[in-house]
């Protein structure tokens, strides 16, 4: 196999509640190759979201190393980490997390503001991304004018617009009805097979896991 995209070695993370330290992840190791579509499953409290957050660079491990694309992200300072995220990670949230006062295309454009692209170039990329997810006709709509499924597709467009190394999805179908969930999963599948996007997805929906190529289970902080 080629050099793995994500290399996780001996990760441990615990959360502090007053003076108690509650362990969430215990000595986890994991590799993910480029182009993989990995689903992380497990009961609530198993630490799957925590692991996702660590991979995405929005949390730091207590112990261990995480190398993504050859970079040890644990050693990056905060602003370097932010910059790294903007270039390498595409986020897909359970509740879409679109900015309510921005239109669909403006939401998709947001990550591009962190790049040196010109205004025209940003527009082009954003419109292209919306095209990929099939929402070109709703470019100028505000999130409140979109259905749940449509909002999530905008979220996906936003996630891919910078052509990131890795897509990170936290329960992407958690809030959707059956039909919309199927649409979204289909889209993710196409992004993986058609565009070779590496995707790490956390889900508790077995149907969603079906769309992924690899499934790993987490239970009480340990990979099964």
């Amino acid at each position, binding site marked *: 196999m080629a050099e793995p995209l994500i290399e996780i070695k001996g990760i441990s993370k615990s959360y502090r509640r007053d003076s108690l330290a509650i362990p969430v992840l215990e000595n986890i190791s994991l590799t993910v190759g480029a182009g993989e579509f990995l689903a992380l499953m497990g009961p609530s409290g198993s630490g799957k979201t925590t692991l996702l*957050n660590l991979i*995405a660079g*929005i*949390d730091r491990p207590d112990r261990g190393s995480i190398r993504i694309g050859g970079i040890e992200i644990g050693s990056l300072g905060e*602003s370097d980490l*932010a*910059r*790294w*995220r*903007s*270039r390498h*990670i595409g*986020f897909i*949230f359970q*509740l879409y*997390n679109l*900015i*309510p*006062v*921005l239109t669909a295309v*403006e939401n998709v454009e*947001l*990550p591009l*503001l*962190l790049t040196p692209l010109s205004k025209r170039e940003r527009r082009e990329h954003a419109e292209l991304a919306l095209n990929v997810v099939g929402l070109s006709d709703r470019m100028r709509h505000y999130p409140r004018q979109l259905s749940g499924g449509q909002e999530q597709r905008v979220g996906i467009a936003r996630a891919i617009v910078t052509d990131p190394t890795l897509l990170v999805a936290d329960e992407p179908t958690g809030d959707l009805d059956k039909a919309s969930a199927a649409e979204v999963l289909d889209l993710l599948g196409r992004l993986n097979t058609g565009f070779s996007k590496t995707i790490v997805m956390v889900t508790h929906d077995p149907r969603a896991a079906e769309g992924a190529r690899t499934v790993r289970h987490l239970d009480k902080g340990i990979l099964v």
Partner: protein
Amino acid sequence: MITIPLSYSLRNLWTRRLTTVLTAGGIALVIFVFAAVLMLAYGLEKTLVATGSDDNAIVIRKGSQSEMMSLVDRAAVNVIRTQPEIAADPEGKPLAAAEAVVLISMPKRGTGQEAHVQTRGIAPESLAMRPQVKLAAGRLFRPGLSEVIVGAAAERRFEGIGLGRTIRFAMRDWTVVGLFEAEGSGFESEIWLDSQQLLQAFRRPVFSSVTVRLSGPSSFSSLKQRLEGDQRFNLEVKREKAFYADQSAMMAAFIRVLGLFVTVIFSLGAIIGAMITMYAAVANRTTEIGTLRALGFPRRSILLAFLIESLFLSLLGGSVGLVLASLLQNMTVSTTNFSTFSELAFRFALSPPIVMESIAFALIMGILGGFLPAVRAARQNILHSLRAV
């Protein structure tokens, strides 16, 4: 620098319209009062400064704050008239006007309460030396008769001194034969008559002042030196503009201090209002903030976005307040000038510095109100923000 688009800040203000209006409204009120106070003080100064001319100097008794307190006797007047620095009229006569000023009590329109009107006995040269004074109705008084002309502002402020009316003072009846305007200067709040008549009626042998037209720009200092050095008399020479400007100094300072004290106190109230609004905005947009941080926007950009929102809010309020204050320019205010003890009419006057100061004050309020909430937004932990629903 990486910034979140301005439209983000602006549209958020629009979305929470009621809150935006209320908060901006509070700021608008504060700026309104702030600007109004400054405009009032400036208007007072402007009126009094307009009362003087650059070409004129005024000779008064040493140490007199107002013409009311000043006494210049006939001997001094004659000496003053012969000074070489004084310009001459086309017929070769020196442009030196010896005037006598008294105060008479008259009832104000509306309340009927009495206040003092500055009444000036003028010399034949006086009108020539004060080109801003023009007859608006009627005619000039005839020397030797009990006739007066009344300034337009005085006529508006006081009862019974309109054209054709009779005023009684110094045990004589005087007819108002004319009304005059003086470009909004202090003269418009006065009553004018022949100085000889005034002196006779009040049995005064002395004048209050002599106003002279300077022959050239350098004349002032030599005139001042000679007259003030003359041991026979106790005189002081001032530029006419400076003399009247000084009369406004105390009153303008009083207005400013009182007004600013009040404004600053309740600007604190408006700032608190802005702070509350911005804290609420931050609290309501926790998830958004977390999302933006997750996407890679640096803390600085979040801070800036919220600070800008606060600044827009205060700019909106400040502009509205300023526009409302500018409407005051149509209002005339009349009150007793502490320095001269007489009624003085003046307007609210707006100037570019006042506009800038008002906007700056509004922006400062915006910064003070928005800074801490913006810091809170920027310092939020990403995970906590995303977890919040």
